[in-house]
């Protein structure tokens, strides 16, 4: 850049300092932009760079450049630069700003980028009130790709993809982004300006500066839409293109402030400070749990358990108590639920393993214990039970067709027993009690410890304990009657 030193004269307007003096990232013609003669991007860039200079935020600024002609904004802006995928600038800007709240994030987007492919991202960033600044260049055309229709293309206008003119029946109407976003609650500042001549440009300069200043002040989402000429693709000379912005474009996209809450907006509260690193294991709950393997159980055991019932019977919970107690007892454990729609209704089951050796597969295909809380579960899983395995069934007798003389069946009305001690929903605990009583799989002590850890409600803990005891009792009293 040449320097001008004329006595008595002072420079009043010059290339803003936030531009590189030489565009070294550009492969050639490094003192010129890559934009066509008369292109609005250059003017918009200049307005942004001036605002950055005036606000003294060059070091803090991160420019997000989009896909489109301005993909190379980073050739020019001597700021931090992130170039992003088509339409995704608001998503990227969201995370940059949240990652570095002190940075000043400017998302620069074109009309195809913001209003078509990135429509979801801009709406949601605006709706969250992300405290960054969007400069939206609307030239009503896809420039870089050679003149296809944009969502903002005026009705009747011929483009390479609307060769007969944009037809509302076919392509819909030009999308008015400011009006759309102004229907949201969160945005602080939304204005539409234009580059159709000096007066409009001076106004645009003020809007750009304000939108950035809002961010410096810590206020929320600000967006400036700039109606901008694209002489090359519009097939006009720059002066004609400028007139089209001033006339037809400004008519179709009324200029003005669509949202201004800069005075009433409050500064977004800062996130709480990060805790010291040493605190993190406690926060993650890692300091609780089973410290070591306290008492290695005598002998080897390999319990392959299937718990099944209908949703709401506490099937998964029963399994969780078992592994919790098993881990305390020094066993290797695993718990695998059936998940998904079963969570809401229908059948529910889980695979539980408790083993004195390391567990290979957590899947239980040949259980040696089946806990069936209802008949369909019994019918489904009984055939899979290994010979000499245990079957616990919630009922008064095994239903027809469920005879398995080679297994040890414990049939009790567990729901009724639970009802007697406080709540029928504790049937899972009466069945667990029966399991302990019949098999001696785990001590009651261990299970109670696990229960205390898993059940936070004092009332339920009491019911569960009673249910567990009555389950044990039920099986000890009557176990000899079972086959």
């Amino acid at each position, binding site marked *: 850049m040449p320097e001008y030193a004329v006595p008595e004269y002072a420079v009043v307007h010059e290339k803003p300092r936030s531009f590189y003096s030489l565009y070294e990232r550009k*492969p050639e013609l490094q003192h010129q932009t890559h934009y066509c003669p008369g292109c609005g991007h250059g003017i918009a860039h200049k307005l942004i760079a001036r605002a950055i200079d005036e606000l003294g935020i060059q*070091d*803090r600024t*991160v420019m997000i450049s989009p896909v489109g002609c301005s*993909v*190379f904004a*980073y050739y020019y802006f*001597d*700021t*931090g*630069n*992130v*170039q*992003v*995928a088509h339409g*995704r600038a608001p*998503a*990227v*800007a*969201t*995370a*940059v700003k*949240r*990652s*570095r709240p002190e*940075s000043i*994030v400017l998302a620069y987007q074109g009309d195809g980028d913001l209003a078509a492919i990135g429509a*979801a*991202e801009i709406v*949601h960033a605006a709706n969250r009130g992300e405290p960054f600044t969007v400069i939206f260049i609307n030239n009503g055309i896809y420039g870089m790709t050679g003149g296809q229709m944009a969502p903002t293309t005026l009705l009747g206008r011929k483009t390479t993809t609307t060769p007969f003119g944009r037809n509302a029946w076919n392509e819909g109407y030009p999308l008015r982004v400011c009006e759309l976003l102004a229907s949201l609650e969160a945005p602080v500042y939304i204005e539409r300006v234009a580059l159709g001549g000096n007066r409009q440009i001076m106004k645009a300069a003020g809007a750009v500066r304000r939108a950035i200043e809002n961010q410096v002040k810590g206020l929320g989402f600000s967006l400036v839409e700039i109606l901008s000429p694209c002489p090359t693709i519009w097939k006009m000379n720059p002066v004609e293109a400028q007139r089209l912005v001033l006339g037809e474009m400004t008519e179709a996209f009324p200029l003005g402030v669509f949202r201004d809450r800069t005075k009433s907006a409050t500064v977004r509260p800062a*996130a*709480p400070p*990060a*805790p010291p*690193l*040493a605190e*993190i*294991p406690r*926060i*993650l709950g*890692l300091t*609780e*749990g*089973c*410290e070591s393997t306290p008492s290695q159980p005598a002998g080897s055991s390999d319990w392959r358990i299937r718990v099944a019932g209908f949703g709401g019977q506490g099937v998964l919970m029963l399994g*969780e108590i078992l*592994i*919790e107690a098993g*881990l305390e007892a020094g066993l290797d454990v*695993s*718990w*695998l*639920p059936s*998940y*998904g729609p079963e969570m809401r209704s229908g059948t529910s089951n889980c695979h539980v393993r408790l083993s004195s050796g390391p567990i*290979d*597969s*957590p*899947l239980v*295909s040949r259980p040696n214990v089946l806990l069936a809380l209802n008949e369909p579960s019994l019918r489904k899983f009984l055939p899979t039970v290994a010979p000499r395995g245990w079957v616990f069934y919630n009922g008064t007798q095994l239903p027809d067709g469920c005879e398995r003389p080679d297994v040890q069946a414990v049939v009790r009305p567990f729901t009724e027993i639970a009802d007697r001690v406080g709540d029928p929903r504790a049937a899972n605990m009466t069945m667990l009690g029966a399991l302990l009583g019949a098999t001696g799989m785990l001590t009651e002590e261990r299970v109670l410890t696990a229960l205390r850890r898993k059940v936070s409600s004092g009332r339920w803990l009491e019911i569960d304990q009673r249910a567990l005891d009555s389950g044990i009792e039920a099986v000890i009293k009557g176990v000899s009657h079972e086959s």
Partner: protein
Amino acid sequence: MPKQLIKGNEAIVKGAILAGCRAFYGYPITPASEIAEAAALYMPQVGGVFLQAESEVAAINMLYGAASAGVRAMTGSSGPGMSLMQEGMSYLAGAELPCVIADIMRGGPGLGNIAPEQGDYNQVVKGGGHGNYRTLVLAPDSVQEMASLTELAFDLADEYRNPVVVLADGCIGQMMEPVEFPAAVAEPRIPHWAVTGTADSRGNLVTSIHLDPDELEAHIRHLETKYRRAERKEVRFESWRAEDAEVVLVGYGIVARVLKAAVEQAREEGLAVGLLRPITLYPFPSVELRRLSRRALAFVVVELSTGQMLDDVRLALEGRRPVDFYGRAGGNVPAAEEVLAFVRRICAREKRAREYMAHA
């Protein structure tokens, strides 16, 4: 640290935070939603960011933003969401940004179902996005590894400045097992190339565009060099009774757990069967497979798919040995007995072949 009984999906988040991850951007999807839920609970408490994005498309681009700003960031998803994230993963790889993506696979194609499957192998391991790039892929087979491989994933992502995928399935994500977390807590660090809105980082640029063909080719060669280095240095696998095996089973994730049980049962029957479990799916343990092929007579690939990793095993073995396949899909997980029945047939076939060769 004491042993904890937690779900695989929760272990991912705890492992991530211990590894210095301070950002989670994601979109809920079964069977991965517990990842987002755990992140929503813990991230704000550790000075991190949690944000439920408007889509997986937005989520992956938020990772792009967080990674650009030098924050260890992650997301969690499943098949349909992974499909949407492929564009972003290509950009991340192209722009050399590190991040970790957990894919808890479910049934496909289309909406498929939410039961466990391994049908995302191709889109994740081969890269479903455009262009010449790879993602490093780690495949945990236990809740413990959900934690430890997630921690490793962050280190690899930074080391190679590339997305790393933790590829698990609904079983591993949903199941609970004891996990022991390391006592060490990694301190978040800002890499020198990050764009953080400071004077020091003002000259930094994150981009994936290289207009000049020579420049782009040089960039692609540079990426390729990184992938070759990963292939030399980062291959991880578990060999389970494979050294003297005549038939080597190959499987990852929940399948490997089933295969271990099948190997034990086969050994009890006197069959020389072993298991090779790839822990890194890319880079793939091809060299180890070739080494095992010196002794092994046949390989059996088992997957919860119609055969995706199968191609990599075949490419690794280059026709040296027969490669058989046993696959279940749609959310079915084979029982060990079911696999064993198949393996018995392969063992018998190989025995007949050997006897025939001895006669001939």
